[in-house]
C-alpha cells in the first residue's frame, strides 16, 4: 500500500518526510516482532524444563534435555537484554524440547517394561511347556 503511494509524484521536501515515515514504520514493525516481555511464557518453559529434569530423562533423552536447558538459559539471557522476540522463541523451543525429552524417556521406560514383561511371560510359558512334557 505504501509502495503504491510512493509512486505518486512528490515534492523534494515531502520525499525526506517519507523516508522518516518509512523508518518509523520499520521500527514499529520490529517492535511488533518483539512485543511485550514474555514473562509468563518463560515461566511455563522453565517449569517444563524443571519437570523434565529427572534421572530417567537424563538417561533416556540426554540430548533433548540438554538442548532444553541451554535454550532456557539463552531465553533468560535474551529476556535480560530485553530481546523479547528471541526470548519468546527460545522459550517456546525449550518447552518443546523439554516435553519431547520427557515423552522420549517415558516411551523408553514403557518399552523396557514391555520387554521385561514379555520376557517374563516367555520364561513362564517355557516353564509350563517343559512341565507339560
Amino acid at each position, binding site marked *: 500500500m505504501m509502495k503504491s503511494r510512493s509512486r505518486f509524484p512528490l515534492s523534494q521536501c515531502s520525499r525526506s518526510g517519507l523516508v522518516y515515515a518509512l523508518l518509523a514504520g520499520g521500527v514499529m514493525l520490529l517492535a511488533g516482532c518483539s512485543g511485550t516481555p514474555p514473562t509468563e511464557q518463560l515461566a511455563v518453559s522453565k517449569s517444563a524444563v524443571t519437570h523434565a529434569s529427572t534421572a530417567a530423562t537424563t538417561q533416556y533423552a540426554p540430548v533433548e534435555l540438554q538442548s532444553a536447558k541451554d535454550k532456557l538459559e539463552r531465553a533468560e539471557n535474551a529476556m535480560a537484554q530485553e530481546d523479547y522476540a528471541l526470548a519468546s522463541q527460545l522459550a517456546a523451543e525449550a518447552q518443546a524440547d523439554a516435553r519431547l525429552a520427557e515423552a522420549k524417556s517415558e516411551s523408553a521406560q514403557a518399552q523396557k517394561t514391555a520387554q521385561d514383561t514379555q520376557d517374563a511371560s516367555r520364561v513362564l510359558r517355557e516353564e*509350563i511347556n517343559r512341565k507339560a512334557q
Partner: protein
Amino acid sequence: MQKNHLFALSLISVAVMTGCSTMPQSSTLDSARVDYSQAQANPQVVQLAPLQLKEAGEALDRANAAQASREDAKVVDSLAYVAQQKIALTQETAQRKKAELAVSTAAAERTQLQLQARTQEANAANQHAAIAELTAEQKTAEAHLARQQTADAQASAAQDQADLAAMQAQMDEMNAKKTPRGMVITLGDVLFDTNQSQLKSGGERNVQKLAAFLKRYPQRTVMIEGFTDSVGSSSSNQLLSERRASAVGLALTGMDIGRDRVSTQGHGEAYAVAGNDTASGRQLNRRVEIMLSDERGVIAPR
C-alpha cells in the same frame, strides 16, 4: 529522472519493510512438513496420540502462517523447530502407549499362563493321586491274589497231603512195598491153589483193593509179573507163571480196569526171592508181583 528516483526510493522502502520478512525457503519448515505428513500417515500415531498430533498440526500451521506472511527466517525456523519437536513427541507418545498396551496384554497373558500353570499342576496332582490310587488298588488286588494263592496252595498242599495219606493207607492195606522200581504188591502162593492159576477168594479180595486203587488213580498202570519155585520143568514153570500173572490181569480187567492199563508177564523160576531148598523158601518164590506205575503211567523195566 525524478520518476526514476522515486522508483528507486520506493524499492528501498520495500526493502526496509520486508527486511524482517523476506527470506529464502526454510529447510526446517520443509522437513517439519514432511515429518508431519509421515506422522499423519502413521495409523499408530493417529490412533494412540491424536491430541499430540493436533497440537503438532497447530504448531506447523503457525510456522506456515509465519512463512506466508514473510516473517523473519529465524522466526519461521524457530516455529518450524517447535513443530518438529511436537511431531517427534507424537511418535514417542504413540510408542509409549503401544508399550503400555503390550505391558497390559503381557500381564493378562501372564495371568492366563499362571492360571494354566496352576491348572496343569492341579491336573498333574490329580493324575498322581489317580495313579497312586490305582497302584494302591493294584497292590490290594495283588495282595488279595497272593493271599488266595497262598490259601489255595495251602489247601492244595493239604489236599495233596490228604490224598497222599489216603493212597498210602490204601497201599498199606494192599501190603504194597516200596522198591527201587516203585511200589510193589506181592500176592503170595497161598492165594492160588497148587499148580492152579485160579485165584482163591483171599487173593480176589486183594485184587479188588487194587482195582479200587486203580479206579481212584486213573493215571496209574500196573505190570503183573508171575514167578514160580524151581520144582518141575522150567517150561512148565514159565507157563504157570504166565498163567497166574494173566489170571490176576483178567481179574483186574473183570473189575472194569482198562486192558491198556494192565500188562502181564511170566518169569518162571527166575528172580527167586528166597532159596528153593526149603519149603518156606519155595513158598516165597511162588508169587505174583504187581508193579504200580508212577503218576505218569511209567514202570521201570526190570
